[in-house]
């Protein structure tokens, strides 16, 4: 029964995407597929935290932003002028921050039972923020003044961009460690609110520290792990391939010039599709590896322990499990996967726009994916990622169809009709909300509920 359910639902998904390919275009279908794959990775990250361990993390947006930042820090060529102008100051401030963090952890340990521990730590944080401003301020000004219109930041390490996915994951895990240390002791709804607010802090740092990320000025033209369309269009083997694939179409045309023109058009069209296909294979590979390992983890003793902690924390504690440590670990693990997905997303877009990180799109939508798909079930999370992203994109044409159906009596220039057609982009929120409410009511465990494995 279990496989049946999964197979059917994923075949429906594949069928829908193929339908889009036939009725709209293959380019659209592939970009939906790619974002579905990325969304599936994101929702798997959240599922590991929420489905496996019952930790409610509303800070998804922050970890995605960190992943995005990693692509900039890793793949962009370094700006040597900026480094020589202010690099030293930044390095010193970075060392200062690390020093302060170590000092805080050290103080936290030795002052364990001291009454004013919290106040001492708090004043050290405030003092170090003020000091940091003095240490880094001048260098930041210098960095941001170099070529402000085109660069004005430190740049990155000029490494292959795929490498940044792992860096994004590691950075996210590091940040998750600090957040987890502070927040994981809180009760579920407080944890939700505080992670949401902390992700707001992270995004505002990414948005406003221009020396680091160019901030609202955006970073465009990031590297790609796939070939560029322009290069493909001029390469011999690709043209041959397109010619070979379209032999029947081309052979119908006798006129040589017309045939050349058609071939050129076909090459241009298929180069875009080819690039997207490259991305699809890459993302699919990532998703499969991730799925393999999280299925293994779910069935391992460790997975059983996590479920035990989720379902009855007290009992797990009594059995000698270190709940605090496991919570912190799984919080870091899930956040690392989210950061990984964030880097993938920015790589696919080819640009990093910090101001686009909004909680609705990057936190709550991912949560809808997990809840809709099925908490605690990896396949469910993937299905949720696919289905929700598909609805998110395809709700516009669907809404247009509905509006036309409902208002067919009204004439073209009617005010209500044109107002509704103008607000089509917002029907997706309506569908998300209704979908979430319906699923929570009638299938509270999601479309593919968690299967309890006895072995």
């Amino acid at each position, binding site marked *: 029964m279990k496989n049946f359910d999964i197979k059917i639902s994923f075949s429906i998904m594949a069928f829908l995407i193929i339908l889009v390919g036939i009725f709209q275009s293959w380019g659209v279908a592939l970009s939906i597929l790619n974002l579905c794959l990325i969304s599936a990775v994101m929702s798997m990250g959240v599922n590991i935290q929420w489905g496996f361990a019952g930790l*409610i993390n509303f800070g998804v947006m922050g970890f995605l932003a960190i992943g995005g930042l990693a692509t900039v820090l890793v793949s962009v060529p370094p700006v040597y002028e900026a480094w020589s102008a202010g690099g030293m100051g930044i390095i010193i401030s970075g060392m200062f921050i690390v020093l302060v963090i170590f000092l805080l952890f050290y103080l936290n340990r030795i002052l364990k039972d001291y009454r004013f521990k*919290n106040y001492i730590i*708090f004043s050290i944080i405030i003092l170090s*923020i*003020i000091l940091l401003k003095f240490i880094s301020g001048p260098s930041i000004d210098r960095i941001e003044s170099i070529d402000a219109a085109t660069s004005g930041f430190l740049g990155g390490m000029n490494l292959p961009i795929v490498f940044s996915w792992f860096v994004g994951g590691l950075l996210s895990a590091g940040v998750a460690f600090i957040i987890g240390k*502070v*927040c994981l002791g*809180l*009760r*579920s*709804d*407080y944890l*939700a*609110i*505080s992670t*949401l*607010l*902390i992700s*707001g*802090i992270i995004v*505002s*740092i990414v*948005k*406003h520290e221009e020396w680091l990320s160019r901030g609202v000025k955006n970073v465009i033209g990031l590297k790609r792990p796939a070939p560029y369309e322009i290069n493909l269009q001029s390469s011999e083997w690709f043209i041959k391939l397109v010619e070979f694939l379209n032999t029947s179409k081309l052979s119908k045309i006798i006129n040589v010039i017309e045939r050349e023109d058609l071939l050129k058009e076909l090459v241009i069209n298929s180069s875009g599709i080819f690039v997207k296909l490259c991305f699809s294979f890459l993302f699919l590979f990532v998703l499969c590896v991730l799925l393999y390992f999280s299925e293994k983890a779910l069935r391992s003793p460790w997975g059983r322990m996590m479920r035990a902690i989720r379902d009855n924390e007290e009992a797990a504690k009594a059995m000698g499990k270190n709940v605090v440590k496991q919570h912190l670990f799984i919080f870091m693990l899930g956040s690392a996967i989210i950061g990984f997905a964030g880097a993938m997303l920015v790589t696919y877009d080819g640009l990093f726009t910090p101001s686009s990180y909004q*909680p*609705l799109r990057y936190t*709550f939508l991912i*949560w*809808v994916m997990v*809840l809709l798909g099925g908490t605690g079930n990896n396949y469910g999370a993937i299905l949720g990622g696919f289905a929700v992203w598909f609805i998110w994109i395809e709700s516009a044409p669907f809404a247009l169809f509905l509006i036309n159906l409902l208002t067919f009596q009204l004439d073209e220039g009617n005010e209500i009709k044109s107002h*509704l057609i*103008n*607000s089509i982009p*917002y*029907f*997706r*929120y*309506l569908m*998300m*909300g*209704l979908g*979430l*409410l319906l699923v*929570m*009511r009638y299938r*509270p465990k999601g479309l593919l509920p968690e299967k309890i494995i006895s072995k």
Partner: protein
Amino acid sequence: MDFLNAIILISNFIIVPAITYGSQLALGAIGVTLIYGVLRFANFAYGDLMAFGTMIVILFTWYLQSKGITFGLLPTALLALPIGILFSIAISLFFDKTVFEYYREKKSNPVTFIVVSLGIMFVLNAVVRIIIGPNDINFMDGHKFIMKAREFKKLTGLNEGLAIKSTQVITLITTIITCSLLFYFLNKTKTGKSMRAYSDNEDLALLSGIDPKKIILLTWVIVSILATVAGTLYGLDKSFKPFTYFNNLLPIFAATIVGGIGNPLGAFYGGFLIAFSEIALTYAYKKFFKYLLPESLEPNTLIQFISTDYKFAISFAILVVVLIFRPNGIFKGKVI
């Protein structure tokens, strides 16, 4: 004279704006805290409820304006406010009946409630954007300034001006009236007392014959009133944009928790605390010190603790600090 100038400078740029913003946050935070106290969940749809109420107010303001009815010196929106309140009460009760009641009867855990309120958030978000669009709307009419900076300078002969917008005064007066009515209701009337009893200990309250249905209905009514008033005041003071209303939910949450969740008076103070720290920490004090210090000591930097970019982040940081030090909030709230 320099001392007076410095005081006026601070009042103009910190105290007056912070009192206005603080009142708006306080009204919002009291609403969130009441929902938490009585219904026992954090309502993520609250920001969008504010936007919904304000949207109805705007629509009726336009209607009144098209009929040529205005409120004299005061903004027309105040006339439309009761209708906005009615609509948001209706939609709150509708969602309570169709969505929340089911989970209340099932005694679901708080996370389920949060998730369901997310669903309502999405729906309200869509409804507001579909009806009125995502753009900035300025619906303030009537008299704009009570005191202009230039007039103040002429009047007092000081170097610094103090500008007071009429919306700021309206905000303050409305907040005072609303809050005193609310606290009178909660502390002095029998229904208010039973509401507090229900929030404090549900089982005991039920034993003493308090009707939970009535309490819950009343809570939604009060919350909708607060949300609409806060939303309209914010919209009058700045402007109406659905996205900002959603974003304002975050400092409102911060104010709620800082003041002790479930504690209305704490939420009131929490709102002002957040507003004052947001504005005071991002203000550049250079001019202020110029007035106070002798020339030799004059500062040459801006003396700004944190750049204005981090205005929102300050409230979040305060929240994190409070959560670590006093998880129950500054004023004792519900036990976590």
